[in-house]
């Protein structure tokens, strides 16, 4: 081997093995996610009744909403109690566009995402000056204002003018769905694919420059400023991203329920949303899926069993208390840890009994 070859060979040998091991773990993770996604898309709709398919569609939608709040709370450290109102804006814009135009559904989703992004970022403006309790309070009041405005404006139902409201709740046309997903199982698949894309979008942010900037802002704003991070820009960026995906989720919601009423969007939904996001795990992308399951599948199961889902508010209260005291990283972190601990304990028990059997004779 010539010296030139040796020289070119050495840099390949020197980097520590760490990044390569990380890459392999990433590969395994990606494959597991791919298999899971294929199962959800193909297997799940065949196993479930239409009732549960519909609630799983809601899980997909609300996982995206929870993810948006997770970005704000878990990544940047900004508490927003206005995300349900942001979702309502997304649904309103999508409904208006679906009635007024014959644009492809994907274009409507994109448009409601972008318009919601602009409005949602305005909700985030107070975040530039405050954090914690006061930010939570201001966003809650803004959400209340949006709820009131939407209630008097009403959701579009095929009427004319800016509001698209025809003044009646009876004999209203349903919202259209994309041509490729008119049935419930097909629309479920469609929602999961849109949700997966939103998760990828967030992942692309979290893993790169904005994710690092957000981590710095969350821990220490002076340190972030000293590192040259424009904290104003990155906070607004986080609100923009969260609002965009929540707006898209609103668009998916419009097609899922097909009839939208302002009564379905309550200000306090944002509080429940924050509770389940904390329970699921605000610092993890998976936590958002757990939050979606808690928020939409659990009530469906209770309903099916004849129990009022109103009881859930008590369960969520206890859940948040439990998460805050014993597992700040949420169920998504606690469950695997507890299972592996249980496994080790059970393993220890069987080994001990095996050892005592071995000694006996």
């Amino acid at each position, binding site marked *: 081997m010539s010296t030139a070859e040796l020289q070119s060979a050495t840099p390949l040998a020197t980097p*520590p093995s*760490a*990044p390569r091991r*990380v890459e392999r773990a990433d590969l395994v993770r990606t494959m597991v996610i791919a298999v899971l996604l294929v199962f959800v898309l193909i297997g799940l709709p065949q196993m479930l009744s239409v009732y549960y398919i519909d609630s799983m569609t809601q899980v997909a939608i609300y996982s995206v909403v929870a993810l948006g709040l997770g970005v704000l709370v878990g990544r940047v450290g900004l508490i927003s109690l206005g995300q349900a109102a942001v979702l309502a804006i997304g649904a309103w814009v999508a409904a208006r566009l679906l009635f007024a135009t014959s644009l492809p559904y994907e274009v409507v989703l994109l448009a409601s995402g972008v318009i919601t992004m602009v409005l949602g970022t305005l909700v985030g403006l107070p975040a530039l000056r405050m954090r914690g309790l006061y930010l939570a309070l201001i966003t809650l009041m803004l959400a209340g204002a949006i709820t009131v405005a939407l209630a008097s404006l009403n959701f579009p139902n095929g009427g004319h003018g800016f509001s698209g409201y025809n003044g009646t709740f009876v004999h209203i046309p349903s919202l259209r769905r994309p041509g490729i997903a008119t049935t419930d199982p097909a629309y479920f698949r469609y929602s999961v694919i849109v949700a997966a894309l939103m998760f990828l979008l967030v992942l692309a942010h979290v893993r790169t*420059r904005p994710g*690092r*900037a957000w*981590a*710095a802002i*969350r*821990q*220490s704003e*002076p*340190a972030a*400023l*000293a*590192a*040259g*991070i*424009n*904290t104003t820009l990155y906070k607004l960026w986080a609100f923009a991203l969260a609002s965009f995906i929540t707006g898209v989720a609103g668009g998916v919601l419009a097609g899922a329920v097909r009839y939208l009423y302002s009564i379905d969007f309550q200000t306090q939904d944002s509080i429940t949303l924050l509770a389940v996001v904390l329970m699921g795990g605000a*610092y993890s992308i998976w936590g958002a899926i757990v939050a979606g399951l808690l928020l939409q599948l659990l009530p469906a199961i209770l309903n099916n069993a004849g129990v009022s889902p109103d009881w859930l508010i008590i369960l969520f209260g206890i859940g948040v208390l439990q998460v805050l005291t014993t597992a700040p990283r949420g169920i998504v972190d606690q469950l695997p840890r507890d299972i592996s601990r249980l496994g080790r304990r059970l393993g220890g028990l069987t080994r001990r009994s095996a050892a005592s059997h071995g000694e006996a004779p």
Partner: protein
Amino acid sequence: MIEVSELTVRFGGVTSLDGMSVRFEAGTCGLIGPNGAGKTTFFNVLSGFVRPAEGHVRAFDEDLLSMAHFRRARWGLRRTFQTEQAIESLSVYDNVALVHEHSKLGRANRRGEVLDAIEFVGLRDVAYVKVGTLGVGSRRLVEVARAVVGKPRLVLLDEPAAGLPDAETAHLGELIRRIPEHSEALTILVDHDMSLVSSCCPVTAVLDFGKMIASGPTADVLRNEQVVRAYLGAEEFQ
């Protein structure tokens, strides 16, 4: 070269910096003074966290105070904090890359330059480990790596050795002495450990109650009557 003239900072009735004037030429310079002398306030003025009531700071012939705080890092200002501020949820690499990607430097050589800074402080083995799992000594080194990555012009070290055991302080001292040759940055070191300051800094300035009371070669400054009095009090001196 950094030239500070008549810098005054007031917090309500308290005057933290009282017409401070000083020149730091090049290399590593010490800045010492008793608790509450205004050392960190001075750093906070340079970082843009505190707006002075009066005074000017010219750094390499540019008006530092007219720049927005986050733009100063882009200009080449770096600092560490008295309470270490390495970002726990990021790896050592990401902590350093974070500073690099908000500097003027292009992304083409980012990986190499970031790893070079990590190598410089001796954390190459843990480059991809999360900072939250490291001990306080290593975290301090992460901060130093963040301060020297790329091409800083002015590095402010605010008590980098606070809370470190002697062996780690010695290693840190060695690094600080090598900063000027590594990055050609003018470095200002604030610390209470006089042996660290005198081993790292050929020149030192002394602040007391917001006023410069001495500056010059470190050995002379440490023998200066006024300085000894500021540190030990007049009674003990006599």
